[in-house]
């Protein structure tokens, strides 16, 4: 059973959770700083904060949800990656398609 690997550390202090929590706080504050205190352009700010959000989501999946711990970890990771692809296609595709003919809107 490959799901024994991470269970060996069970009786120890939950370091991975603590590190994940700390990183999440740092990433949230970093996103705030980029949004409100930096001099970047609007476009640059949005690119940076979306990347920070993706990193934080990965931390949740790996350090809190242990997506890789079970025997079917490859199916789990594959499912989530496929869902992320669908999500990106839906969001980016919708914004792209709906942007046509909107030039005179003050967006």
């Amino acid at each position, binding site marked *: 059973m490959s799901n024994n690997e991470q269970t060996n550390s069970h009786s120890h202090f939950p370091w991975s959770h603590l590190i994940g929590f700390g990183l999440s*706080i740092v990433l*949230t504050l970093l996103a705030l700083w980029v949004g409100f205190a930096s001099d970047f352009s609007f476009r640059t700010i949005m690119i940076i904060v979306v990347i920070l959000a993706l990193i934080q*989501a990965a931390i949740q999946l790996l350090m809190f949800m242990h997506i890789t711990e079970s025997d079917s970890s490859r199916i789990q990771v594959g499912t989530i990656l496929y869902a992320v692809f669908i999500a990106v296609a839906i969001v980016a595709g919708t914004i792209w398609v709906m942007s046509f003919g909107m030039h005179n809107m003050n967006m």
Partner: protein
Amino acid sequence: MESVEYSPNTPLEYQSETGRLNILGFWIFLGAEIALFSTLFATYLVLVGRTAGGPGPEELFEISGVLIETFLLLTSSFTCGLAIHYMRNHSLKGVFLWIGVTLALGLGFLGFEIYEFVHYIHEGAALTTSAYWSGFFVLVGTHGAHVTMGIAWISLILIQLKQRGLTPDTTRKVFISSLYWHFLDVVWIFIFTAVYLYGMVM
């Protein structure tokens, strides 16, 4: 027929075929949830700016309230992870303590969110005010409904845990509900970024 020996280190929730399949099935459900939320995000982002002359997000969003909600939910995700850690150390007390903290933080989050919604409606930004606020309330409200549902679900599991203790069945339910709870925090990270940061920086 199931004669696989489990190492004593294998968590209880993985010790039956049903448990393993339920956990895998829940991951697939979470994939579908990602698709659901992506349609709401797409709708919201397309409707940004369509305020029909009414109030816009830059007038109503307040960073302090959003940050409180964010840290409440983020911390609840952490304490939920601690509960699973204690569950795997066979500490029923630890599970009750940390799930209890998780639910309290979840309720706090909901309280602030309801307060925020009521405040917006009071300021003249309701579901029917404009396309923008429709998109906002449907996206953020669907997440809030998920949190409400999660609190009710996990409370029921706690009752069962109290009655039956840590068994392969109950640990599986606690573990699956913890995946759900972490997932709600993942969705919130994107709401924080695409709705609040975007709305306030714009």
